[in-house]
């Protein structure tokens, strides 16, 4: 502190003696309690770093006397949430799917839980909005290969489709009529025109007539006389507007010649039964459920 202090003429306040090009600093003293408050915050800060994890070391930070940790906090929060959900979770485990759907609260809980499980486990193939695409079935529409009631959806989820690791998996195998030379190329083309016709798309009437015979001899056994498909066999409906592998003539020909057959893993061993049930209810609620 400079020694030469003077009284400022206008304010009557003493200067600190600091002078910058004629501008002098006035000394309007801070209140003393302000200073003590400042010291108190310093003391508090030191205590805080002792009580809580703070000081960095070589292999980690100091633990703090209170033993607080953010990870323990999160664990406690999660445990609390799970405890609050346990009433619902237990009911879902013990009740039939149809009963759960009839209970408004349980239904809401199951849909919320199913939705979050879907985002984690299913959205990779079926899409975040469950609209499928590129050979992965759309779960929103009303066309189901293996059945779209909640029990069937649950079974599909449990055991998967063409999933080698599960003996009870849903299995269907469409013959490769072209690749295995079961049918002539021309028959396949005709059969594809017939399928175009029964599904209400533009077609070649003459070829379709020929294709009808091919269809009745080779396809109707699984896909049905009118192309209505069969849930038990996993045979897709051929007379509607929905095509898993495309509905153009070329795509139908390709599918008859060398069928693509998708695989879905079974989730029985990987997801808890309650979660699988919630997933089934969620998928069933998406709008196309039967």
């Amino acid at each position, binding site marked *: 502190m400079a020694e030469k202090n003077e009284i400022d003429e206008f304010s009557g306040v003493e200067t600190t003696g600091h002078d910058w090009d004629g501008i002098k600093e006035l000394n*309007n*003293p801070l209140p003393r309690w302000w*200073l003590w408050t400042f010291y108190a915050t310093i003391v508090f800060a030191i205590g805080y770093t002792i009580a809580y994890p703070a000081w960095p070391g070589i292999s980690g930070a100091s633990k703090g006397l209170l033993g607080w940790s953010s990870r323990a906090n999160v664990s406690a929060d999660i445990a609390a949430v799970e405890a609050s959900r346990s009433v619902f979770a237990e009911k879902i485990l013990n009740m039939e799917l149809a009963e759960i759907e009839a209970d408004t609260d349980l239904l809401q809980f199951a849909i919320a839980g199913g939705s979050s499980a879907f985002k984690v486990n299913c959205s990779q193939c079926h899409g975040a909005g469950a609209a499928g695409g590129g050979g992965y079935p759309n779960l929103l529409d009303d*066309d189901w290969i293996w059945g779209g009631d909640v029990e069937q959806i649950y079974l599909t989820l449990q055991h998967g489709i063409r999933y080698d690791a599960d003996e009870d998996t849903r299995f269907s195998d469409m013959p490769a009529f072209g690749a295995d030379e079961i049918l002539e190329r021309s028959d396949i083309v005709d059969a594809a025109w017939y399928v175009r016709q029964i599904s209400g798309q533009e077609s070649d009437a003459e070829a379709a007539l020929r294709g009808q015979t091919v269809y009745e001899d080779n396809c109707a056994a699984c896909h049905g006389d009118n192309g209505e498909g069969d849930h038990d066999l996993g045979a897709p409906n051929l007379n509607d507007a929905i095509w898993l592998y495309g509905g153009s003539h070329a795509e139908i020909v390709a599918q008859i010649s060398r069928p693509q057959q998708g695989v879905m893993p079974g989730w029985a061993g990987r997801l808890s039964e309650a979660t699988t049930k919630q997933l089934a209810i969620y998928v069933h609620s998406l709008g196309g459920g039967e």
Partner: protein
Amino acid sequence: MSNIGTLDDPSEPQELYAARKKIFPKRATGDFRRLKWIIMIVTLAIYYVTPWLRWDRGPYAPDQAVLVDVANRRFYFFFIEIWPQEFYFVAGMLVMAGIGLFLVTSVVGRAWCGYTCPQTVWTDLFLVVERFMEGDRNARMKLDAAPYTFDKLRKRVIKHVIWLLIAVATGGAWIFYFADAPTLLVELFTGEAAFVAYATVAVLTATTYTFGGHMREQVCNYMCPWPRIQAAMLDEDSLVVTYNDWRGEPRTHGRKKAAAAGDPMGDCVDCNACVVVCPAGIDIREGQQMECITCALCIDACDDIMGKLGREKGLISYSTLSDYNTNMALATDPETSTINPDRIRDENGFIEGIRHFDWRIFLRPRTLLYFSVWAMIGIGLLTALVMRDRLGVNVQHDRNPIFVQMSDGGIRNGYTVKILNMVQEPRVIFLSLEGLPGATMSINGLDQPDGVSFAVPVEPDQLRALRVFVRQPAAYIEGGSTQFHLIAEDKQSNEMDIYEAVFEAPEVK
């Protein structure tokens, strides 16, 4: 804060931090003190009593007149209930409070600080306790200087206990605005209330006790931004507490002696009454000061003395700067540049040119502008309140995917529809679809067949979210986006809310 101890001798090492100077305000009596008592009683009564007022809202809503229900996101104020999305009412009232403050400040200066600020009101209340226990100014100063005896200790302890009780009651009253007051009161005493309730009471107890009992004017001088802001909003026509030195100076103690000597005599007798009553510990005669909260107690004190001396009251008064300057110019002797009160008096009292309080200062462009803005916002809010809907429908179209191809060639769109029943009784709301040819709706969880109109029961004062699927058969599909209406209607009250929704379909090739 200018006169610390080292002024007399600048060679002394100076202090950078100053201790608080104890202030022992003397009890004042007079018109302003009476007004302050009334305002204090009214504001404290509003604060403590409001949560206990009941207001019947029927069986589906709380019966507390004023309640901030944070858990359920509702704010109740007598007949008004506000949902979170209607918070603009609160925002609008805050804007009104702000502009109202501009208005009041431009007319009567720091009236907020002097009369209604909680810091002022509670400090006043604490001073009442202090005076009751320890006596008025002189007795308190004496007691403060005295060594600790049993009697001093007794007085001090009781004073602090009463302060703490007031502080606890203050913190306690606050939390009653956020929960049912009678229930919470019982829970508080039986230890069943939430931790946050106890924590809030504890924090507010500590701040009330510290600010009202110990810090007082320090809060205004060092912690509060208002003194600076409000001072900036004053102009030369604002009424502020003013020492009229044009009639007070030169201060004359020994009047007979001065008269004998023929010296000019001001009205101020230097009795110090204005200084001893000041809760901010300043001398108003030094002119406008940042520390002055314009509580006007010095006016009362001075008027009392002037009355006793048989002189005209108003030596200290609410006065505007422009009046003061005019009067000052009249009172100043141009030759010596000193004040001579003889210049502004004749045998009838003050000379004609002296300006006194005039109601017309209230009607200035500035105050009229503030008032009209304030009133317009008020009218706007009232209109919005009267016109607001108590039934609403919000629709969110699914984004992923925006439409679903159905097996029969039709197209389905999914929506999340939220029906807001903002009255306190259960209602059946009809949700119907209009303007989309051939389309039908289905609603998840409502066991009803597809159709264009659904009866949806909605709980009182609740929002009901629905998953709604709208399906249009292949024959009607036009492709691209089609606008249609989703209508929520209460057929009993004929309230209706229409949402313009969009139906998406693939482009027709």
